[in-house]
């Protein structure tokens, strides 16, 4: 019964058990697992070698030797290809095979007890672990190469903040020997001004279980302190607290110096802008003021906050605000310069003139507006004063002209009356004086002179007003004839002969009144300055100069004169040399003024006692 139970247990055991008997190792008891292992064909009493199943020859050999030597042997993780049948796919299985010699009481060999445990799962796991460890070693090597060649120091800290690893770059950078005590030395290499901050920040980050990111100066092997960026992240093993931190330290000295220089540059510019007694500001690309200099606050009495992004517009004279705002919007849209003259309110309420200029410039931060308001109030006021004075002078001048004109006009009537009275007196009264005739003649002459002067004065003022008259294409001959018609009395009185020769250049683009005035004065002068011994012969001729410009030549055979100096104004010469000829100077003065005002000039040649030639260069 017990025997039967034992057999039952052995049969269904998950390990293979079997006996092989005699030197031929014939099949004895084989449980099911062992039968399967041996390929299922195990006829009792037959030798194993006849049905070896998956067993290899060297295993059969070992079995024989165990039988003969009587010493047990264990083959660990022995591979067998199962099952052996042709149809199914063979899979490698691993077994721990225990070979135990069976002996009789006299220690004579009986057979072998074979015990097989399937260890395939364990073996596969072991092999996987082995492959994994190989892969890990490979990755590890790669990581090491990377961490040790990258231009940064990498490190790992444990939960207590002690260094567990630091890449060799740390030693290269700091020049410390490989034996250096990292935890003791690293803090000492941090710049004294940064040390406390760094220790505090990393300590805080560690207690809070977060990473960090800060910059500090670290002493290099040559003793120089260089700016470094330290970043680290915690390695979390949730839900526990971080177990370690991994990070890198990168040198950022040059970048930092550069941005420091930029900051300094900006600060220097601001300092300059703040020191200038001008209103300076910068505005964003879209037109909002971001910075006003100090002087702006001083001038306006308003803070940057109070001014706001468009506050400058409120400082302008009310009527100027809307057009200035429109222009600014337009400039921002197009990028055109902004420029204008505006009155800006000072803190005390006084408005002062400013030139406001702004220009869009583009730097690395994109386009920005730079503006300046220059106080030009003093210049502007000076200009205003000058303008007022000028206007006043011009008005006075006009008033004088009017006065002279009206005076000459107003005096004409009394003069006319005076002459009438005088003629009446001469006709009716008798004078008891021997020199009465001379006296009468002198009064007559004086009256005549007065009349002439008045006429000339009136004409001068009249013509002066017409200086700016519009020009038209004029026929020289017909204008000259008109003028001669006006001089008919004088021509007849002196029996003057006047020749007009305008064929060379018959027309002239000029103001009609001006041309008449010039012709009138030149022709009437020629008659006035006639030689007492001969009738005047006057030639007026048009010509074209070498440079193609029109000329007018008026030549007479009159008194002539000596022309001493070029600089002496011509009419003075005439006046002085011929004091008996009334009003001649005024007329010539007028001619010269007209011609000069049109961009021309008057030239004269003369021979005393023979005659004078005037040449009008209408245009230069």
């Amino acid at each position, binding site marked *: 019964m017990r025997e039967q139970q034992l057999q039952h247990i052995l049969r269904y055991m998950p390990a293979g058990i079997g006996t092989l008997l005699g030197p031929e190792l014939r099949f004895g008891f084989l449980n099911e697992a062992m039968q399967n292992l041996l390929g299922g064909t195990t006829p009792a009493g037959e030798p194993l070698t006849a049905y070896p199943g998956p067993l290899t020859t060297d295993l059969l050999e070992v079995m024989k030797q165990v039988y003969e030597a009587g010493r047990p042997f264990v083959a660990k993780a022995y591979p067998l290809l199962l099952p052996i049948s042709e149809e199914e796919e063979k899979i490698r299985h691993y077994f721990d095979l225990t070979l135990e010699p069976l002996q009789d009481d006299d220690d004579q060999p009986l057979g072998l007890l074979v015990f097989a445990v399937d260890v395939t799962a364990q073996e596969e796991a072991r092999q996987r672990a082995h492959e994994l460890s190989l892969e890990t070693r490979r990755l590890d090597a790669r990581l090491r190469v990377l961490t040790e060649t990258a231009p940064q120091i990498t490190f790992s800290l444990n939960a207590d903040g002690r260094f567990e690893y630091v890449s060799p770059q740390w030693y290269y950078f700091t020049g410390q020997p490989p034996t250096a005590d990292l935890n003791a030395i690293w803090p000492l290499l941090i710049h004294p001004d940064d040390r406390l901050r760094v220790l505090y920040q990393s300590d805080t980050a560690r207690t809070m279980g977060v990473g960090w990111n800060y910059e500090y100066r670290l002493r290099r092997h040559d003793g120089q302190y260089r700016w470094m960026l330290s970043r680290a992240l915690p390695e979390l093993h949730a839900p526990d607290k971080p177990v370690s931190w991994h990070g890198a330290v990168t040198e950022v000295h040059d970048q930092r110096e550069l941005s420091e220089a930029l900051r300094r540059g900006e600060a220097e510019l601001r300092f300059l802008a703040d020191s200038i007694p001008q209103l300076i500001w910068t505005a964003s690309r*879209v*037109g*909002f003021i971001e910075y006003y200099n100090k002087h702006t606050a001083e001038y306006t009495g308003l803070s940057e906050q109070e001014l*706001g*992004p*468009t*506050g400058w*517009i*409120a400082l302008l004279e009310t009527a100027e*605000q*809307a057009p200035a*705002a429109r222009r*600014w*919007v*337009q400039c*921002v*849209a*197009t990028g055109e310069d902004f420029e204008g003259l505006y009155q800006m309110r000072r803190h005390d309420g006084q408005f002062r003139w400013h030139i406001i200029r702004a220009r869009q410039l583009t730097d690395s931060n994109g386009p920005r507006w730079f503006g300046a308001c220059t106080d030009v109030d003093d210049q502007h006021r000076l200009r205003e004063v000058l303008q007022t004075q000028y206007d006043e002078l011009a008005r006075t001048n006009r008033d004088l002209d009017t006065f002279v004109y009206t005076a000459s006009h107003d005096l004409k009537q009394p003069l006319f009356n005076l002459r009438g009275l005088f003629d009446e007196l001469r006709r009716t009264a008798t004078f008891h004086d021997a020199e009465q005739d001379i006296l009468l003649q002198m009064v007559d002459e004086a009256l005549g002179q007065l009349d002439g002067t008045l006429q000339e004065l009136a004409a001068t003022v009249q013509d002066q007003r017409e200086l700016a008259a519009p020009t038209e294409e004029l026929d020289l001959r017909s204008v000259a004839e008109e003028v001669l018609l006006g001089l008919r009395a004088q021509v007849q009185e002196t029996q003057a002969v006047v020749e007009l020769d305008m064929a060379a250049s018959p027309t002239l683009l000029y103001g009609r009144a001006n041309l008449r005035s010039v012709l009138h004065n030149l022709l009437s002068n020629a008659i006035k300055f006639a030689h007492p011994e001969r009738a005047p012969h006057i030639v007026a001729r048009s010509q074209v100069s070498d440079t193609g410009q029109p000329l007018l030549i008026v030549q007479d055979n009159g008194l002539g004169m000596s022309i001493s100096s070029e600089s002496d104004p011509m009419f003075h010469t005439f006046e002085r040399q011929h004091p008996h000829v009334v009003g001649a100077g005024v007329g010539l003065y007028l001619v010269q003024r007209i011609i000069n005002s049109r961009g021309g000039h008057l030239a004269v040649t003369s021979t005393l006692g023979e005659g004078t030639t005037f040449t009008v260069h209408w245009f230069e």
Partner: protein
Amino acid sequence: MNHIVYMSRAVRPLSDQDLKELLDQCRRDNALHDVTGILFYSHGNIAQLIEGAPEIIEPLFEKISRDGRHSHVVRLVNKPIAARSFPDWSMAFHPLEHEGFQALEGFFLPDQLPPTPTSMTIADALIVDLVRQAVLGAPGQSEL
């Protein structure tokens, strides 16, 4: 009475539907709190003016600036004003689909936008004109 003006960038382009919903929600909530103003939107650029009691619009601005639909919120002004310049709350943007927007209350096509109210000081009107130009482009600049 204060007004606040800010500019910002949409985190991702807002669709017509997004804008319509925003318009509806804002018109409802703002009417409730007596908040008026205008919002400009185009191609992810946003500018907004809100007017109302400071104790209402300051927290509202805080809320809006934390809204995840936009970022880079830059406040240009927050200052007292004499009176409201916007009768209600409206929005101006270039819709992708024109149809259906014409009938929406409180919505303007940029080229139909009334001129900046003359009730504002010229300095304040200039702010509105500049943000509007920054978002919608210069007037006459055609919309692609």
